[in-house]
C-alpha cells in the first residue's frame, strides 16, 4: 500500500491544537485502523490524535509529537490518490496554522501482479496485441496471425513479470 509520511514543524501551534477538540472521532478512527490493518496485517496500529478521510479515499492520520511538531501519515491503496490527498491535507492545515515541513517521505509496497498487468497493457502491450490483428486482416498469410498473437502474449507476460519483480 502506498503511503506518505512527514514531520511538520508548526509555528502557530495554538491554531492547530485548538482544532484538537474536534479530533476525537471514534468512527473515523475505527475505519482508518481497519483500513491500515488490511495492508499491514498482524501488527499493532499506533494511536493517532486525529483521523481524516479525504476525497480520494486516503486516510490522513495526525499525531502531535512535541509542542510544535506534528507527524502526518497518509495511507491509501493508490499512490496518486495518496499524493493528491496529502497535498490537499497540507493546504487545509496551512490555512489553519502556518507551518514548515521538516521532511516528507514517499513509500509504496512492491507492485502486485494485477497492477503490473494493468501498467503493461496501458503502456503499449495491448497495442502490440491489436496491431497484428489489423495487419493480418490486410495481408492474410498462414500462421502469421498465430505467431503475432503468441509474440504479443509473450511480450505482455514478459513485461508484466519484469515490472512485477522490479524493486520499487
Amino acid at each position, binding site marked *: 500500500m502506498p503511503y506518505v509520511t512527514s514531520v511538520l514543524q508548526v509555528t502557530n501551534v495554538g491554531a492547530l491544537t485548538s482544532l484538537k477538540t474536534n479530533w476525537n472521532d471514534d468512527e473515523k478512527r475505527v475505519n482508518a485502523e481497519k483500513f491500515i490493518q488490511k495492508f*499491514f496485517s498482524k*501488527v499493532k496500529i*499506533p494511536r493517532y490524535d486525529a483521523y481524516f478521510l479525504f476525497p480520494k479515499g486516503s486516510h490522513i492520520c495526525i499525531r502531535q*509529537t512535541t509542542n510544535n511538531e506534528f507527524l502526518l*501519515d497518509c495511507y491509501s491503496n493508490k499512490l496518486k490518490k495518496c499524493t493528491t490527498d496529502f497535498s490537499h491535507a497540507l493546504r487545509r492545515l496551512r490555512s489553519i496554522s502556518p507551518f514548515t515541513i521538516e521532511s516528507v517521505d514517499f*513509500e509504496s509496497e512492491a507492485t*502486485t501482479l494485477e497492477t503490473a498487468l494493468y501498467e503493461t497493457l496501458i503502456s503499449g502491450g495491448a497495442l502490440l496485441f491489436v496491431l497484428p490483428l489489423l495487419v493480418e486482416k490486410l495481408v492474410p498469410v498462414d500462421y502469421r496471425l498465430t505467431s503475432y498473437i503468441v509474440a504479443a502474449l509473450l511480450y505482455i507476460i514478459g513485461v508484466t513479470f519484469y515490472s512485477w519483480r522490479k*524493486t*520499487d
Partner: protein
Amino acid sequence: MSKRGQEFESKVASELRKSGFPIKENVRIGKWEADLIMETPGKGAVVFEVKNRNVGIPDVLSVASMANNMSGSFTVTSGTILTTAIPTEPVLETAADNGIAVWPIIENENVTKTFTLLGRISEIELQLNRISNENNIHEFINGLALAKKLHNQNIIDDEIFSRIQTIVDVRNKIAHGQVLSNDDLDSAIDNCEKILKKLSH
C-alpha cells in the same frame, strides 16, 4: 530506490557480512520486499530494512508485517530498521509496540563494531524467543518483559539477566542517536558473546 539509498544498502550488507553474518539481499516476503535478511542457525531470521532517510510509522508497520509473515517459514523472526536519521519518539514507540528495533547508523570510525553489536543483539533476541517457545519479539524490546519472565521462571540466571539489562541500555542509547566509544562497543559485544554462549548451553 535512489542511488544513494542503494549505496547505503550495499554498504550495510557488506558491513554485516564483514562481521560474519550471512546476509541475503532483496528478498520477497508476501507482498513486500525486504532489503536484507540475516538467517541464523536453528531457523531464525531477522528482516533488515535500510532507509537512507527519516523513518515513519508506516515503515515500522511494514517491517513488522514482514517479520510476522516470515514466521511460517522460520521458527523465530525479528525485524530491524537501519536509518541514517535519528528516529522520532512516536516511531520508536510504535517500533517497541511491534517488536521492531530502529538503529540510526551514524558515520564514525566504529561503524563496523556497531554492526557486529547489531548482529549479536539480533541473535540474542532470536535465542530468547526460541527458549521461551513463543515467537514474541515484542517483550524483549518492550521493557525487558520476556527476559524478566524467563528470569522469574529460573530459565535464565541472574548473571545473564543483568547482562541483558546492560545490552538493552546500550541499544536504547544507540536508538536515540548517541555515538558509543570504542571501549563501550567492545564491552557490549563481549557481553553479547557471553550471553549467547550461556544461552546456547
